[in-house]
């Protein structure tokens, strides 16, 4: 009798194990960033009893992997973080689930869902975001030389001259990698000396890169490059260390920088004077059509982007919520300061992330060229127009 009972128990347990759903989330965060993401997944597990496994894949690697997987009607994960342009592209091709039934656009800051929306269909959801507010500096360094963040373009130029005079031969550090840090600086110039509308027009391909408006904004940037105020493009984490130890005075970077320095309270940031917009780069997640657990995946996606999910994430630092119900008190102090910077300016999607594809790669690559050969601006703009077609 006891034997029979044990056997039944074993069968039931095995059936339970067999039936238990484990969702796979694929995201780009590794190391400390992954550690900051895990509490969100844990909270979901506790709330629903659904297990979640996290795998790290960079978006660049997913771009290689997913097309072949989709062609074979398979998917490596149930919820996947990826470029918005990719989600839109493959959503239109029918490989991505429409999640408009589980995601309420009213939860979000205006425009946050635009990059993954095609007509009435919503192919992804915006998780937390990073903003690219401007030039970061060490408060202690500015204090040492009696410097203040500039209020006008002339003051900005004066600041650069002063920095050079006190020993910073190239005052601004230029981060590189595949090229995106340079594109962030460039977009900031386009928004400041063009307008927030220019950024949107460029994304929607309504304006040529060789137009006078773009050229005017780019020439402002080129004037600084020609003066040698920007350093050579250097791997962005390496130059971050150099900037922090005082080899450079200013560094244009996104808000995630607050989680990458030893003493975030020493960080100060200013936008280019006159900037009326700020790039707001959300991390987007989608559910592939080939998931084996569509209902559970929807639950997870809805949780991640909810007020609770995003509050848990922003509390870890370095993230800004896209969910408008997340309270300012949920942020660590330095991130709350960044969140405040967003008040009164138009939040804009990242230009190259929104366009994606061949243009994105060309944009990054052409900017690397512009940084070292600013006199080639005409060629750069011509190539960008060609790649946009």
């Amino acid at each position: 009798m006891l034997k029979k009972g044990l056997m039944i128990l074993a069968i039931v347990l095995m059936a339970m194990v067999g039936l238990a759903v484990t969702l796979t989330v694929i995201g780009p965060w590794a190391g400390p960033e992954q550690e900051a993401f895990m509490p969100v997944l844990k909270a979901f597990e506790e709330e629903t009893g659904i297990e979640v496994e996290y795998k790290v894949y960079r978006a660049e690697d997913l771009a290689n992997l997913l097309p072949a997987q989709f062609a074979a009607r398979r998917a490596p994960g149930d919820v996947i973080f990826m470029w918005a342009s990719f989600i839109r592209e493959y959503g239109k091709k029918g490989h991505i689930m429409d999640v408009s039934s589980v995601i309420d656009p009213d939860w979000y800051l205006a425009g946050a869902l635009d990059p993954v929306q095609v007509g009435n269909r919503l192919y992804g959801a915006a998780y937390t975001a990073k903003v690219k507010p401007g030039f970061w500096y060490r408060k202690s360094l500015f204090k040492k030389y009696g410097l203040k963040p500039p209020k006008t373009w002339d003051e900005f130029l004066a600041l650069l001259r002063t920095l050079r005079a006190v020993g910073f031969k190239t005052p601004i550090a230029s981060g590189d990698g595949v090229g995106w840090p340079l594109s962030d600086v460039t977009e900031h110039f386009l928004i400041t000396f063009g307008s927030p509308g220019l950024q949107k027009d460029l994304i929607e391909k309504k304006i040529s890169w060789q137009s006078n408006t773009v050229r005017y904004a780019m020439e402002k940037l080129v004037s600084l490059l020609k003066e040698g105020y920007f350093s050579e493009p250097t791997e962005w984490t390496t130059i971050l260390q150099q900037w922090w130890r005082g080899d450079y005075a200013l560094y244009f970077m996104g808000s995630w920088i607050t989680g990458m320095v030893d003493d975030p309270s020493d960080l100060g940031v200013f936008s280019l004077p006159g900037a009326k917009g700020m790039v707001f780069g959300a991390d987007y997640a989608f559910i592939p059509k080939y998931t084996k657990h569509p209902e559970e995946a929807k639950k997870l996606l809805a949780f991640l982007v909810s007020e609770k999910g995003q509050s848990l994430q922003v509390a870890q630092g370095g993230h800004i919520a896209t969910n408008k119900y997340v309270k300012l008190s949920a942020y660590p102090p330095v991130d709350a300061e960044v969140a405040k910077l967003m008040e009164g300016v138009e939040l804009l999607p990242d230009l190259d992330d929104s366009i994606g594809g061949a243009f994105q790669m060309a944009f990054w690559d052409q900017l690397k060229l512009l940084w070292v050969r600013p006199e080639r601006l005409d060629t750069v703009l011509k190539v960008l127009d060609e790649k946009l077609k």
Partner: protein
Amino acid sequence: MRRAKLSHYAFFILPALLLLAAFVVYPSLRTIYLSFVDEEGKFTLAGYKEVFTSRDTFDPEGFKRGFPMGTLIHNLLWIGIHLPLSVFLGLLLAVLLKGLPGVSFIKSVIFLGMVMPMIVGGVMIRFMFDGNVGVVNMFLKFLGLHTQTWTAYPETALLSLIFGSVWLWTGFSMVLYSAGLETIPKEFYEAAAIDGASRFRMFFNITIPLLKPITVVVVTMTLLWELKVFDIVYVATMGGPGGASNVLALQMYSYAFREFNFNKSAVVAVFITVSTLAASIPMMRLSTRE
């Protein structure tokens, strides 16, 4: 009896043939097919036209302005500079190191570049030529010369990669030439010495001709690698700045995984395949004739 033998052979060969058919023949044929069709599967030569008239492949303005000149020219430059340098240096090192004490250790150190995955090699090249931490700049600084991040400038990016890869690839030719040198009978040199031949003459009249089969192998393998070079460029410069160090294989990758245009990518793949065949078949024939 003969039929039984044949079925025996077939039993052992079939698994390999099946694998080859599935993973080599079918993908190759499919790639050729893809290069001749559009996204809807209709026959077209538009992909070929687009690729070969593209500035990415051949940019005549580059001859006046400087890099980029297009992937085709970049690959040819790679062959023109990397091939003679790595073959010559390999031969030189093999001859100089022959018979020296502790030579195995020295050769192992030189061969390390070849043992290392090329991706790692690419990262190392990137750092070698870096303006702040690069060993090349440390050396130049020591000599009082100009320093910069050499991979960041269009004029020097491709050349940096080529010279960096000479360092990685020389070990390969050196090891093959070292093995080849061991096969040359000592008597040939002894006889030549008795006849009063100088070392220089012995090198050109004995060593070089007898190493010809090795040279064919080294040149063929190096040429094939240069035609399909990808990994080093991908990690060191991603083909930049402004396409100044782009190569055919990276162009193929970009079409496939950035533009998601597999038809254009297939065109470049077919072109690389035809080029490698055109380069390797005559070399193989030459080696067979020997």
